């Protein structure tokens, strides 16, 4: 088993939560793992990414080489495109299509979406809209986690255990909402894949 994943988004969108959940699920599954994060200045509304590497064999580098990523997982469509140089030809993109516009030169959204579709292996939908249907907008990142989960070889129950572990202290309602968001995202991706 080997999954090299680039997680992308804008500071504050919750991509590190996705990394944390994959991380504890991987630890429970006895996998090797390396996960490089961004802290500091760029967390203030700038572009952020995390390199997440999971493997059944020891991992050397904390960074994923260009052209080697199996998966780009993004909370934001333009941020998904930013990491295309890292994607392997067989790799998949799983991204929300909802743009986060905090800059005045954001490119034409239709052009962004068209460029995503050009890649072929894409799961793209509005994660926030789906999150609102099953839980609330705050669970958008859990929808994304669900949508990316069919591409990562970790059993579903281990990921759900990790979600419980992370949100457990906030009460059963929060856990249920996040599990629902995760499952819905997973279903959506399985329909596309």
């Amino acid at each position, binding site marked *: 088993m080997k999954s090299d994943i680039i997680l992308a988004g*804008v*500071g504050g969108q919750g991509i590190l939560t996705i*990394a944390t959940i994959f*991380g*504890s699920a991987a*630890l429970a599954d006895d996998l*090797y*793992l*390396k*996960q*490089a*994060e*961004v*802290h*500091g*200045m*760029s*967390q*203030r*509304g*700038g*572009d952020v990414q995390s*390199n997440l590497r999971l493997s059944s064999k*020891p*991992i*050397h*580098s*904390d*960074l*994923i*080489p*260009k*052209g*080697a*990523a199996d998966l780009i997982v993004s909370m934001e469509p*333009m*941020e998904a*495109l*930013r990491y*295309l*140089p*890292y*994607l*392997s*030809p067989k*790799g998949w993109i799983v991204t929300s299509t909802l743009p986060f516009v*905090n*800059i005045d*030169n*954001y*490119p*034409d959204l239709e*052009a*962004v979406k068209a*460029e995503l579709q050009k*890649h072929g292996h894409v799961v793209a939908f509005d994660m926030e809209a789906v999150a609102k249907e099953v839980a609330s907008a705050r669970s958008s990142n859990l929808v994304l986690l669900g949508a990316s989960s069919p591409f990562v070889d970790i059993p579903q129950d281990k990921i759900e255990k990790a979600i419980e572990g992370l949100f457990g202290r906030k009460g059963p309602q929060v856990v249920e909402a996040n599990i629902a968001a995760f499952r819905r995202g997973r279903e959506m991706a399985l329909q596309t894949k």
Partner: protein
Amino acid sequence: MRTKRLLLGDEALALGAIKAGLSGAYAYPGTPSTEIMEYVQGDEESRRRGIHCHWSSNEKTALEAALGMSYCGKRAITSMKHVGLNVAADPFVNSAMTGANGGLLVISADDPSMHSSQNEQDSRFYGDFAMMPMLEPSNQQEAYDMARKGFELSEHLHIPVLVRMVTRLSHSRAVVETENEADLENHLHYPANPRQWVLMPAVSRERNRQLIKDQEKFVYESEKSQFNRLEEGEDHSLGIVASGIAYNYLQEVFGGKVPFSVVKIGQYPLPVKMLKHLRDESDAILILEEGQPFIERQMGGLLYDGKTIYGKLNGHVVRDGELTPDEVARTIKALRPEAAGLKAHKEGNAPENVVGRPPALCQGCGHRDVYGAMNAALEKYPDAKVFGDIGCYTLGFLKPFNAIDSCVDMGASITMAKGAADAGQFPSLAIIGDSTFTHSGMTGLLDAINENSNIVVVISDNLTTGMTGGQDSQGTGKLEEICLGLGADPAHVRTIDSLPKLHDKIRDLFEEEMQYPGLSVIISRRECIQTARRHASAKK
């Protein structure tokens, strides 16, 4: 018994220290080192044992306090970012002269690529000129293991040990095997040679000779260190020296089977014999190191025998920014295109519809109100200069505020504004955050007060150390008293809340104080929106 845990490099180092009998941690927050102290503060065992873990005012006070703990025989760590070591440079270099009693680790986290820093300085140069042994972990497990080893070295060699971290290790998580049981902390005991802690010239000369003599011992420790090793390869057309995380990138690009002989470096001073062996069996040498060409310069001098050394100085390895597996692969491919097993990935498409997304001040951040009102007040003064400082408010340089003219080092806003006013600049303003003010702004303010310099000092107080994630700020609740205590005129120490509805009032306050021909301090205050949210949700 050992337990597997998922830890950042910073956290692994902190936990390693706790398990190795740590008694005190001292630090000032700074990316990428902050999580070391935060881990000690959050760890249950650390709380149970009462390990000291209060933030210090700056890196100098932190290192001195850690040295005091070491004097009393206990194990201490002090952690900082690379530019923090500049602030602590005086006690750092002199702590090699006093030596250590209890194990003392000085942890400096470098930030190549400048993710959140002003420069790319490489802490290993400090270790070298202080003549101090150094450790440089290549992965999270080594970071954990090096804490204990570092304490042992420090106590065995009677000297502090510099631990060099880098961003990609500090902020990368991996599974680490950790001990369940911790060592007992040292009992309070005094140095065997108390005289060498008094660095008067007569003592220092003696101690300096001893330190020079000890270098041989330090090299001997490096030769037999578990963190330095020679891995023999079959292809001797190139020998590679790889330190710290550069070693991982080398392993990555060959899938773990490097055809060349490699010396992996994790402990300094350099293991001379090991490197001579590599040199003798190889046609040429390649140096892979994260940061500046430190090993490369030493190899050039210490081991030079006419063989080519490929590295950053002659442009074979890129000289600025972080190393990456891609850069290591490119370098080796250019030097040895036929190298067996070099993995080649085809880079993905270059994106077309992507633009930069620079960071910005949060919506609801009080710094925004300060800059908005300040810019309004300065409309009448096109020649105004605003000297900035280090923190979230440095983002005031960017759109939409474009409000500051400088950002140099912690505290420089006040002293640069003073120097500019001395040169005839008017209006001359300084903007500094509360935590930066107590870190290094107070002494500069005293200078300005003593000469009644015609400047306006704005302390944008958000009651926290915001940029690094909201650590306690040492001046919270005391800023007015500090300014008055330093001798500022009470009529010109003005306080206001940084709120949108007070925009006109803040603007007028700036105008009034610019008109006053002397030193003014404006303290504009509003809790950081990030910590305010956290406090609100904690109350629920």
